């Protein structure tokens, strides 16, 4: 089901999921677009309202579903749109890195960056750098996990219980 483009003969193309705060890094990525600052197409951006919404489950799910690297973008310390969500993100990130280390996953595969809404050029730089870092590390060789991953119940208790089950590739 996953077809990966063969763009030239570049070999390994990292898959990167980026969780960006709506107010800073996501907007900066918009700005990078407006300024036509091209960067590695490997980065797939998912919008959150705040880096504080980042549930460590999202990071692990991204790795499980095939991400080779995960990027988190939040507001600079002291600048959180919601006062201090970014500090919570920082704490989760640092603990998550310790977990990854113990699980044999290179820490560099998870990166937290502070990028303000005006720093479109930093989005470009970070996206390119991070893609190169992951390219150097190579694919994340996570052991295939047997069985189904049962997604947790959605907000509505019904009517779609079965839809929550995603089958692993």
């Amino acid at each position, binding site marked *: *089901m*996953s*077809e*990966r*483009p063969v*763009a030239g003969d570049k070999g390994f*193309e990292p*898959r990167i*999921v980026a969780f960006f705060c709506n*107010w*800073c890094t996501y*907007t900066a*990525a*918009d700005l*990078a*677009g*407006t300024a036509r*600052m*091209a*960067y590695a*197409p*490997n980065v*797939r*951006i*998912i*919008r*959150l*309202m*705040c880096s*504080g*919404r980042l*549930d*460590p*489950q*999202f990071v692990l*799910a*991204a790795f499980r*579903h*095939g*991400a080779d690297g995960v990027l988190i973008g939040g507001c600079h310390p002291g*600048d959180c*749109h*919601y*006062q201090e*969500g970014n500090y*919570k993100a920082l704490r*989760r990130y640092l603990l998550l890195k310790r977990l990854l280390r113990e699980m044999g996953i290179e820490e560099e595969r998870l990166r937290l960056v502070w990028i*303000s*809404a*005006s720093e479109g050029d930093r989005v*470009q730089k970070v996206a390119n750098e991070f893609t190169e870092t992951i390219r150097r590390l190579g694919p994340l060789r996570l052991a295939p996990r047997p069985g189904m991953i049962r*997604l*947790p*119940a*959605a*907000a*509505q208790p019904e009517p*779609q219980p079965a839809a*929550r089950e995603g089958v692993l*590739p």
Partner: protein
Amino acid sequence: MRAHEIYPNGGPRIGVYVCHCGFNIAGKVNVREVVEFAKTLPFVVVAREYKFMCSDPGQEMIREDVREHRLDRVVVAACSPSLHEATFRRALEQAGQNPFFFQMVNIREHVSWVTEDPREATEKAKALVAAAVRRVIFHEPLQRRRVPVKDRVLVVGGGIAGIHAALTLADAGKHVYLVEREPTIGGHMAMFDKTFPTLDCAACILTPKMSQVAAHPNITLWTYSEVIQVEGFVGNFRVRVRRKPRYVIEELCVGCLQCIDACVYKDARFPDEFNLGLGKRKPIYIPFPQATPRVVLIDPETCIWFKTGKCKQTCLEACERAAIDFKQQERIEEIEVGAIILATGFKTFDARRIPEYGYGKYPNVYTALEVERLVNASGPTGGEVRLRDGRIPKRVGIIHCVGSRDERFNRYCSRVCCMYSLKLAHLIKERTGAEVYNFYIDMRTPGKGYEEFYDRLLQEGVHFIRGRVAEVTDWAITPDEEGKLIIRVEDTLVGAVRRIPVDMVVLAVGLEPQPDADEVRRMFNISCSKEGFFLERHPKLAPVSTFTDGIFLAGACQGPKDIPDSVAQAGAAAAEALALIDKGFVELEPNTAYIVEALCSGCKTCIGLCPYNAISFDEARMIAVINEALCKGCGTCVAACPSGAARQHLFEDAQIFQEIEGVLAYV
């Protein structure tokens, strides 16, 4: 996913729309391929492309499909949601569907504009569309929250922008709090003699507006005051303002100024801030004759009573209204407003940062703002352009782009310097008959009547030398240069290095953000652009809005601006604020957190995390409860809830998990 197994009764019906945005998207992304791909995704009933989805026919396409194909989910792949999410949600609503059964895919800013290879761009667009389709299946119908709005507006900054915004709102019948840090309103404009290009007298157009502010029944004017805290959200901001003591009771002072005459200091001997130190004042003073409010103040740094505790207090005796109060303390005012307009202005570039121009070293090097005071009839010289030693200059050089368009300092053009340099050149020539030289990189005169003004100066015989000045020096090498300042410049039109001896150098300093712009933006929870000016929500479509709803920008705090632009922007900000508060309510994005009560164990993990104290512990039921009115939807409690009882509308775990799987399934 196998559609029929999951939804025996048919399941959701999704429409996917891929926008070309002219060539903006279609020039890079193979839109047809994305559409064909979308058709293969589960539950997708229709997938279409269109030149401009945001246009009327584009929206109509969605509305028609919703009716005809009974669509209950819509995905639009186009620009950033910050631009058109609202547009498409409205289209859904018009078609009778809940507007939140919608997901936008950003394939312009995040794909076509930032990807070089068309193949890769197309694949990325497909991955993002796949993610949105998977996500939207899990969307739920939501209602926007309606919150009542306070009928009052806070305007921060009493320059021309703040004054104009405040008056516009006050004239519309809204109550305005105008807070100004300095003892008087008027801002930079009050320092000017004339304004370009019409050369109207700045005071003649500004001071009536200042008095109007002071007299307006709908305006509460707090000068010598600063905002110290802002809480709340659009429609309901709670603001604390510190009112610094001026040691004169504002309500009692009538501005007769007898106290100033009576001061034990017979002569004014302290540098006068309003005249940039070119003039002198006493410890008890009024910044300038038309200061508004017309209330004196005492500077405790120079007042002998505050310094030594010993003074005859002749000012106190002189005041018939007993308005002087040496014991006055600062006061904190608390107000509630529905909208806030920031008009905090700019500061000028510190010319000392370019030592080769000699500011601060050679007494006859002036900044443009100082010269504004010299040419001003109510300035320290009564409008006569005299050097510090009293001489009248015979040759004057005006150096443009000081601190602007300079890699070392600010790359941007300050927009006003060319024009004010022309104005000062005209005024100096008019007052002194001096030869005036302008040293410029490019003349930038793109405004109504601006180019004509430049022409007029050319006619008047003002000299223009194209080239960035290398140095201002007093090192004479010819007898002609003795006792003069020599401006060294490469004249790029002549192709030669020239030395122009002058008596007076005027530095056309650029405009910079206020030094405390960063603290101010944090207090108001808005962003700054790279140069440090406040960041507008969108440079074209929302130029006076910020990313924080209910907070608007006016004037040069958003970027260098001349008076006409500042006033225009102030009017726009006032209109935005008016539109907001006049409606009486705001509709908030329903992305609030909520707790599924039956599932909450009452572990209290979330309670301390909420920055808005929106979560409390219900002692009777022993669970956490979220006050939706206080929740701003950051979702930090949701991420932290260890048992998954806290959730967030529009950002449900299931929706995000689907998005994660989606972006990865089709890389």
